[in-house]
């Protein structure tokens, strides 16, 4: 079982290549979460606060898009960024930037849909007050998002979980290039295909541990800042 040993050796000895892979996975997924939050949270809040024809359709669509298959998003972004595609001249296919774009598209619907639900519930509570104070639409959105920040953390974590776990999109648009676009999930896929199952499993456990640590840190931050706020 030398392979099992070697997986843990890599971790315990602080193998540089492994750290580079972990760092890239985190950098890509956290960037995607940050970008998706910038887009998804105001979008979700806007949908929560406005009434217009076809709104129900939009809500259903947002909810359904939480289930976008990563491999389909990957393929669409690939066709867009390919040298033969409309954005080919940017030359960013097979780079971490392309991976961030694909994951952002993947998780904007998750964050937007969960934000919409949270803000809609909160709006029911705040409506009279905010209407009486004659706050502008942008002001309402900002106030509601800020006051819902602890509940919205769950939306961010759901988005992060999706991004960190997916392999389909980053494999297609990143290309799984050694030392450049290889993430935890594509490394697990590669080691599996080499028949190196114990090492693949070891890397998988490292990924699960990291996701766990980030969720624990987020939870700790939430508890701490709630205490500060009260």
């Amino acid at each position, binding site marked *: 079982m030398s*392979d099992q040993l070697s997986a843990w050796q890599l971790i315990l000895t602080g193998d540089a290549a492994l750290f580079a892979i972990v760092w*890239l996975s985190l*950098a*890509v997924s*956290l*960037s995607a979460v*940050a*970008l998706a*939050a*910038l887009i998804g949270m105001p979008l979700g809040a806007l949908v929560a606060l406005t009434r217009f024809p076809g709104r129900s359709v939009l809500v259903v669509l947002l909810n359904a898009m939480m289930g976008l298959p990563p491999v389909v998003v990957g393929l669409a972004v690939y066709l867009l960024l*390919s*040298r*033969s*595609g409309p954005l*080919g*001249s940017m*030359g960013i*296919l*097979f*780079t*971490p*930037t392309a991976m*961030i774009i694909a994951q952002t598209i993947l998780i904007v619907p998750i964050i937007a849909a969960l934000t919409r639900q949270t803000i809609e519930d909160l709006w029911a509570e705040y409506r009279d007050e905010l209407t009486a104070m004659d706050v502008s639409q942008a002001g309402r959105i*900002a106030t509601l*998002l*800020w006051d819902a920040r602890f509940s919205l953390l769950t939306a961010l974590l759901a988005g992060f979980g999706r991004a960190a776990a997916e392999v389909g999109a980053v494999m297609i648009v990143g*290309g*799984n*290039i*050694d030392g*450049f*676009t290889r993430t935890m999930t594509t490394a697990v896929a*590669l080691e*599996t*295909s*080499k*028949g*190196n*199952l114990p090492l693949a499993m070891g890397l998988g456990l490292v990924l699960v541990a990291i996701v766990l640590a980030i969720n624990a840190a987020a939870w700790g931050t939430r508890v701490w800042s709630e205490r500060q706020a009260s």
Partner: protein
Amino acid sequence: MACRLTSLASALVFGILAGLAPAGAQDRSIVVASTTSTQDSGLFGHLLPLFKARTGIEVKVIAQGTGQALDTARRGDADVVFVHAKAQEEKFVADGFGVKRFDVMYNDFVLIGPKSDPAGVRGKDIETALKAIQAKAAPFVSRGDKSGTHSAELALWKLAGVDIAATKGPWYREIGQGMGPALNTAAAMNGYVLADRGTWISFKNRGELEIAVEGDNRLFNQYGLILVNPAKFPSVKKELGQTFIDWLVSTEGRAAIAGYKIAGQQLFFPNAEKKGS
């Protein structure tokens, strides 16, 4: 306060994006679309550090099946292709997507099967082996992904006089995946599978599998190198790509290919002639 959070988040994102962005004009790197066999066997892990030490050029390898690798290049998304299906490669060049094809190295295919050899195929003759597998409907795993190995497998069925498209039954499983997954599947179902020797030697999850047929001349596996046509795609880094090709077919590159061994076994045999075809 919400604004502060937003600006913090965007600073974070753009910081990371800037950190990850390629180095621009100083970027001395090329993208090589290659096959799973060259990557999974560890050959690139051996060659690329030597090439980088020599030239300072970084090679980014996208490992796909031969069909997909040529397709990636056909879209202009690679600078060089390094694959193993001569007919497909020659068509690629004839269609104007590649500049010139160079022979670079070869190894051979092997028929892998369970130690118990239920179809009784062990030996040196691939033709009778495939006939026996089909006659006994023994489980056979096909790549089914238009890769070089898949093309070779289809050509061998034809050679054996088996019309596989018409006669395949539940015993013939097309998985549409790379060499490693095909070997994993064969190990799990104790089936037969055609593999390149390099991937087989470096493959770890063998289970009850071993080599059933080897040494038949018809199992020859030639690898070729092609620079993607810069006239078609101006983004192709032709100098850097050509440097990579020139190095692989040079005396030094050939020695590097021949020097890659696992447990004392040489995996690939250089046979470049330098003139291209």
